[in-house]
């Protein structure tokens, strides 16, 4: 856990692109109150930009008609929302019990060495970012690694080398 309250301001106004705009309008009909759109709207912003800026949160609050402080609360509560720019390839390693017992640390150590970054950091060329996350729900095939949302199961250092080669 860490302080996620220092938001990054880009200085550029945020709006949804046409596709996300349509998706927002489609989803908003699902819920009894507009406030319920905070979580999905934050996902849409993250999908669009790869991360969520202060401007994006302000835009979402105004679009929904709720308080910016409330969007701020939600975005900082859930660690799966990225509040700073991520690498082109965002690698998540599960650190919860099953993955922990089956050797997630070896994977993390290899990535730290190979990419030269610690969990929570982005490589200088912007190609990779690394993060340790809580349970991804694939305990039966631990340890598990997630790259840009795709799951890679029963991982070990050898498999990881092959995977990285396809990404570099």
């Amino acid at each position: 856990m860490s302080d996620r309250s220092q938001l990054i301001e880009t200085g550029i106004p945020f709006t949804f692109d046409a596709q996300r705009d349509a998706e927002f309008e489609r989803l908003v009909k699902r819920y009894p109150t507009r406030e319920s759109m905070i979580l999905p709207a934050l996902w849409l912003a993250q999908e669009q930009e790869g991360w969520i800026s202060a401007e994006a949160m302000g835009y979402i609050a105004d679009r929904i008609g709720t308080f910016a402080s409330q969007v701020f609360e939600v975005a900082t509560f859930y660690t799966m929302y990225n509040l700073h720019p991520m690498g082109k390839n965002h690698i998540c390693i599960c650190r919860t019990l099953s993955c922990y017992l089956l050797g997630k640390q070896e994977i993390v150590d290899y990535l730290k060495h190979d990419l030269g970054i610690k969990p929570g950091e982005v490589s200088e060329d912007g190609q990779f970012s690394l993060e340790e996350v809580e349970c991804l729900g694939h305990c039966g095939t631990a340890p598990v690694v997630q790259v840009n949302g795709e799951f890679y199961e029963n991982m070990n250092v050898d498999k990881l080398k092959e995977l990285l080669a396809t990404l570099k």
Partner: protein
Amino acid sequence: MAEKVKLFVNGQEVEVESGKNLIDAIGAVGIEIPHLCYHPALGADGNCRMCLVGIEDGRPPLVPACKTNVAEGMKVQLDTEKIKKIQRDIMELELINHPIDCPICDQAGECKLQDYYMQYDGQKSRMTVPPVLKAKHMDFGAGVVHDQERCILCARCVRFTRLITKTGELGIVNRTDYARVTTFPGRPLSNRYALNVVDLCPVGAMTSKDFRFKQRAWFLTKSESLCHGCSKGCNIYIDHNKEKYQDDIIYRFRPRLNQQVNGYFMCDAGRMTYKLENDNRLNTAQVFGKETSLNETVEALRRSFSQAKKTVLLVSPNCSLEQMHAVKKLSATFNTVLSGYSDGYINAGDGDDFLIHDDKSANRTAFALLGIESSKSAFEAALDGADLLVSFQNDLCRSLDDVTLAKIQEKTKFVYIGSYQNGFSEKASIILPVASYSEDIGTLINADNILQRYVKAVIKNVQVSNLIHVVNLLGGEIKNHEEALTDLSATIAALNNIDLKHIPSEGIALTGKEVSNVAA
């Protein structure tokens, strides 16, 4: 009257009001249940867990008192070992990351965390890990300064901005022990009631930029009074202190609970009117720019009265009912014209649907009750041929521009009997200082026809006469405040059945009919 129920607290039978939660109901009969997050105006949140109590009826071992309503025959346990342990544990958890900077904290002396630590905890810290450091003195805007480390995350301030002002500037971001109260970047506190979060904060996390570090809370004398900032008549505490060798100074106004008028809150503008009571006061009498004594000034005034062909008395809508009545009697005795003209005290469009009114005067309703004419046309007609204008607290500069006033002054001598230096006092040839409301007693009727009483709070080193005494010296019939009240009860039909000398603290609601009848 609300229905009563009987229940048992620690085996002792008590009778309390039904329909309330345990904290309020039992609290009303003097048994305290500790609580940090619950506030009657903000409802039960149940997040602090300090109010956990036991109920012997087979429900879960412990329940939050804020979310539990009283019921007939309920058996409430407040002092079991289990509850005491929980209270100690909660205090211990609250204090893990707390900076314990009570010696420099404004809240010290009126801090729930401090009080409860002494009452329910009293143990040494067992923490060996370093505390999470958070931000200090964050400027939240609107005069509120926040200390994140002192905060216990009760969310009262957050709920205030969401439920009461509906502006929602504050939120609790992050989670676990990194959680903290903050504002969204570029959207600071910007509502006209923001300083209420300072009062609501049970600890010293929310401080007022204006008040912080000025005084220790326990040195302040808390006197009950009424805000004169607008016609709402919010009930306040005047917190003042006379330090050794210094004058009695007001440090802040705080709202005082009156469900009939302002509830728990007041507006920021009204809160800041305390400054007018300290600064810009008239202290010495003057006759044509020369400092004079009270007697000399009264003599000069009496001469002016007898020499004048036509005199107009101008009373302020901020004067008390008693003062207005005394001036009205004086007017009748000397056969002068009495006006309450004060259009400039009304700031049209400034009011809202909560506590702020357009009318920035405290007692205009009394004009109608006493039949004091305050229209501009009547005032202009009164000035025609007048050679003396005596203002009682009324700053005519708020209602008329300098050019108009200069034109009037060509033919009319200005006299100002009041408490403050203002535009009109500068123009007046004779000035006589009188006590302001914080140094006097009086009765006001607010915009909702609620009659309320304020009492003397501040005692200045150099005391000036009160307005009724000055009016009496000038030849007015009413000698003092008590006499004014007796006479008001006797002569004003709407007040016939009201004991003006014993007005309850919540005030008396006059019906609109009574007031308008008299005016007609």
